[in-house]
């Protein structure tokens, strides 16, 4: 037990931080917000060139195979700079492929690591619940093809992604399924959403979309477990980005308060501002510790659904609190588009609503506490039965 970073971890974190501080400037972030595909291809190319995409992917495809916690640190830094690159979908799906992909799907990782293949995932549907129970996208087999009909919502970067990992439900009652499909397949209509984050989110409508059977991921029996794993990775990495962004918003507020004067002194000398800064720091630190623990467990193959839920539920509230208080300390500046301060607020506001709301994640935590036998104790393993079984299956 040592929750602090190792020297190696700190070196990677600092390298990512320095790279992004230089390259993912507010100017670049603003350009991406106005670009048709809401991303910076230049930054994406540099990210790939420096090897960040392969940091926790297998060496045989060009990766560095470092533990998942390293990738988590990179996500914190990406969030810190609100870097406009499609890292979330790409890394979530790449992790799933690395663990569960067919040989052909595994081979895609080489393109991924080079930055030549952007990936994304589609779980939620228009009813917006972050739950596999809400999956209604219908799949049926027709000879060598899977045929999909229905809708997906809140899909990232669909216009730039080369592949999208889709969760569906078999109409024959056999349960859930996953497929890695091309977004350009006939019968897929994408409608762009307009979000507070000014990023690339879309609704997808599937009308008898024919997908080669070989593009399914995992066996039917694994689908539920893999889908949960994908959702956990997405929620955890989103939380890591929120932690980074809220940390930077806190830092900006503190620095602003040190130089902004009112009533004859820096506003940072007022106890009210100091206590806000302390609460921001404490809240963000808490979210950071929770998400690092969750990602660390995922990297070790330990059950982590509850830990992910804890982290996302907490970050939704505390990271939003930190960016909102940063706005407050900045006064009117936070509300004006031409100042940079608002870039962090708008993103964290959106991220706090993605990959599961606070009540949704708390419901899972409550299930782990109240719906199984025996007393509970903080610090003891609290994995859900389901989660433990999944972890066992995934490792095997």
């Amino acid at each position, binding site marked *: 037990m040592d929750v602090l970073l190792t020297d190696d971890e700190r070196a990677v974190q600092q390298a990512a931080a320095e790279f992004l501080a230089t390259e993912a400037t507010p100017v670049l972030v603003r350009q991406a917000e106005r670009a048709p595909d809401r991303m910076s291809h230049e930054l994406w190319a540099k990210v790939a060139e420096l090897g960040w995409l392969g940091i926790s992917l297998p060496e045989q495809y060009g990766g560095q195979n470092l533990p998942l916690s390293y990738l988590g640190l990179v996500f914190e830094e990406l969030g810190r700079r609100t870097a406009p690159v499609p890292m979330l979908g790409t890394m979530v799906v790449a992790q799933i492929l690395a663990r569960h992909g067919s040989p052909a799907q595994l081979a895609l990782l080489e393109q991924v690591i080079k930055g030549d293949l952007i990936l994304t995932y589609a779980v939620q549907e228009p*009813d917006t619940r972050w739950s596999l129970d809400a999956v209604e996208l219908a799949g049926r087999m027709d000879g060598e093809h899977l045929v999909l009909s229905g809708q997906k919502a809140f899909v990232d970067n669909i216009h730039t992604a080369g592949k999208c990992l889709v969760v569906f439900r078999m109409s024959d009652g056999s349960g859930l399924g996953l497929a890695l499909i091309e977004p350009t397949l006939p019968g897929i209509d994408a*409608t762009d959403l307009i979000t*507070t984050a000014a990023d690339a989110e879309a609704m997808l409508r599937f009308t008898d979309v024919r997908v080669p059977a070989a593009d399914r991921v995992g066996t039917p029996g694994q689908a539920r477990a893999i889908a949960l794993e994908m959702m956990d990775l997405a929620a955890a990495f989103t939380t890591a980005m929120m932690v980074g962004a809220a940390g930077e918003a806190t830092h900006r507020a503190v620095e602003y308060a040190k130089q902004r004067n009112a009533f004859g002194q820096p506003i940072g000398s007022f106890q009210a501002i100091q206590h806000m800064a302390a609460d921001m720091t404490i809240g963000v630190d808490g979210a950071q510790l929770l998400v690092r623990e969750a990602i660390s467990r995922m990297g070790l193959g330990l059950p982590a659904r509850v830990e992910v839920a804890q982290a996302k539920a907490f970050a939704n509230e505390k990271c939003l609190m930190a960016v909102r208080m940063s*706005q*407050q300390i900045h*006064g009117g500046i936070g509300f004006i588009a031409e100042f940079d301060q608002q870039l962090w607020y708008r993103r964290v506001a959106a991220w706090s609503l993605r990959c599961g709301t606070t009540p949704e994640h708390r419901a899972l935590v409550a299930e782990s506490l109240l719906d199984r036998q025996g007393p509970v104790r903080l610090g003891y393993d609290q994995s859900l039965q389901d989660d433990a079984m999944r972890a066992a299956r995934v490792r095997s």
Partner: protein
Amino acid sequence: MDFEFTPHQKQLRSEVQAFIADHMTAALKAELKDDARGSGPEGEVFFAKIMARGWTAVSWPKEYGGQGGSPMDQFIIEEEFQRVGYKRIGGGGTGAPAILASGTEEQKRHFVPATIKGEISFSQGYSEPGCGTDLAGIQCRAIRTGDTYVINGQKIYTTSAHACTHIFLMVRTDPQSKRQAGLSILLVPIDTPGITVRPLWTIQNEPRAPTLTTYGEPRTNEVFLDNVVVPVSCLLGQEGDGWAVARRGLNLDRVGAWRYLISVMRDEDIVNWLKEDGDRNATLRADPRVRDKVAELWIEGQVARLMTMRSMSISQRGEAFSYEGAAEKVWAPEHGVRATEAISQILGPSAQLLNGSPDALDDGLFAHNLLGAFQSTVNHGSVQVMRDQVARNGLGMPRAGR
């Protein structure tokens, strides 16, 4: 202790509601979507009718074109009009009340009736890039030379500068002075040579916020003043007494119908949205967690309403605030933020979808609110400064380092 409106007040509210039902045409609504100030052709017709009913400047003195009525009547009228998104009511914001309190007879006759008719309007020229909450830090200077002032400096968050006729300008008339001393208020026509107005666009309006969003200003401004020459007759009150002159005006932005409504309308919106038809609405409506949270917010909204009623009661009695206005300015805006964030977590990812987006709820109202609710805790005196005032003015607590 009377928590019921009087028969007269109930009658007045009914009349205003009936008036709105009769005269708020589809054409006017369409016009207001693009011009919340209501100064388009339909808006002018509507405003003329309101004037004819005697519903402008209700609590202002009759001799200057007001109705000599009670602040509570004015509140009722403002609430009804603002609830339908019509903001050209209430009589001119910062300017005229301060002129009534501190102006010369000539200034009152010149400005007040014209303000009521909408021929004159003021934009508040207080904040500067280097000072917001602490106005005593103002650096914009007006140097008197003979019968004129020559003004140089810069203002920011001058919200309606692009649409008003005058700036209610706080300047430093004594260049040697510090802090509150040596400040003065000048009533400066916006078209005076040397004034440049530059837009500052807010984050709440990309795309355009729907009408009833909490803090729906699409634009505010910076104003640059470069050797602006005005006659000394522009001075409001005594030279060097600007601090006291301005304080009379400021409290009126902190309490009343507008502040109340922007703080609590989301409480009503979420309940009414939950009551709409639809599977999601029904599921959420039945969820005990949602019910508990909505009730919590509603109760907080009731407290905001009652604090507003308290402020109006004090005003109606002609008494001065001890701390009650400041307390309301802490409670209501912070409630608005809590409500916004809690509602977002109830609505889930849809709450990030802005006006014009597929699947946006109520034209993106909740999402735009998420982008702007906190602004109400900053403007017209931050909640931190308001808490200072509650403690010091209301509770007699001492300043640090006394």
